[in-house]
């Protein structure tokens, strides 16, 4: 039950973040101090979207076919935490745009997403290792 709830939370964040990143891209990318920094912000933002799609689609496939998805979750969870650190410490919250509702929602729901994803990873890994 708890796992399902976490899946819903992660699913909501993933949809929101993808929509927000596409919207931000259409508006010209994140606003930063120098052209090089803007370029960096845009490159990393594109990678965030690619990562989200690259992890969500295989997860859905593995979940539907009943294959082991714990390793995929470990990789996804590690990258989610690291990109969070990068965005917060190095890029001054590149995805946060206070003028956009999706920007605010993405920013505020990110901690919930990280906790939910961590819970899912631990549960999936525990189930896998106890099975093996």
């Amino acid at each position: 039950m708890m796992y399902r709830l976490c899946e819903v939370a992660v699913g909501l964040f993933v949809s929101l973040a993808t929509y927000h990143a596409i919207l931000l891209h259409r508006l010209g990318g994140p606003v930063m101090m120098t052209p090089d920094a803007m370029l960096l912000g845009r490159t990393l933002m594109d990678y965030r979207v690619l990562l989200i799609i690259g992890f969500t689609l295989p997860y859905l496939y593995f979940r539907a076919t009943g294959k082991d998805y714990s390793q995929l979750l470990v990789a996804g969870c590690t990258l989610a935490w690291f990109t969070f650190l990068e965005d917060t410490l190095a890029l001054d919250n590149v995805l946060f745009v206070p003028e956009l509702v999706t920007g605010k929602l993405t920013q505020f729901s990110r901690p919930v997403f990280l906790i939910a994803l961590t819970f899912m990873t631990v549960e999936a890994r525990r189930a896998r290792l106890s099975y093996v």
Partner: protein
Amino acid sequence: MSDSDHEDGAILTDEEIEALSRPIQTIRLSTYGEALLTKTFAFKVYFFGISTLATAYLVAYFIGALDTHLAYGWSEAREDYMLHQLRFMAGFVMLVSLHVWLLLQQRLDTLLISCASLQTYFQFSGTAHLISLQGAIYDAWFMVIYTFLQSIFLVLILLLLKEEWASRRKAWQVQVH
């Protein structure tokens, strides 16, 4: 003992008493010899290789030898500098975690999957950013060395993961026989 105590379930079973009287297992770091005893020969080779290479790479960064070659050297953007610091710190944490986990004789597969995912992310986002900076792409030798070095780390992590599974299978087979 009164009946109310029985109803509270205060009586311990033999298994519970045995579990309580068992000495508490404290965390103990083993020696490298003990930790590598159950590992395959290839694991030891890859482990030594990745430790040496990663240490050399980190030392080169921390003494400033790589500053002009990394993205910060081309763009001079503060964000690039911060990203480098964060990524090299992550590399350092990964290396230390690998050694500590090994010495604690814990399963390494989850940690290695995390390391592999981070290294893949570093390699692809780093290379894409260098290409987008224009200047770096014209320095062909630098790009070749950078990509080669990053790929070596990734390949070594994946080989370590493969050998970790092989070592566990080997240890399990020894236990069965």
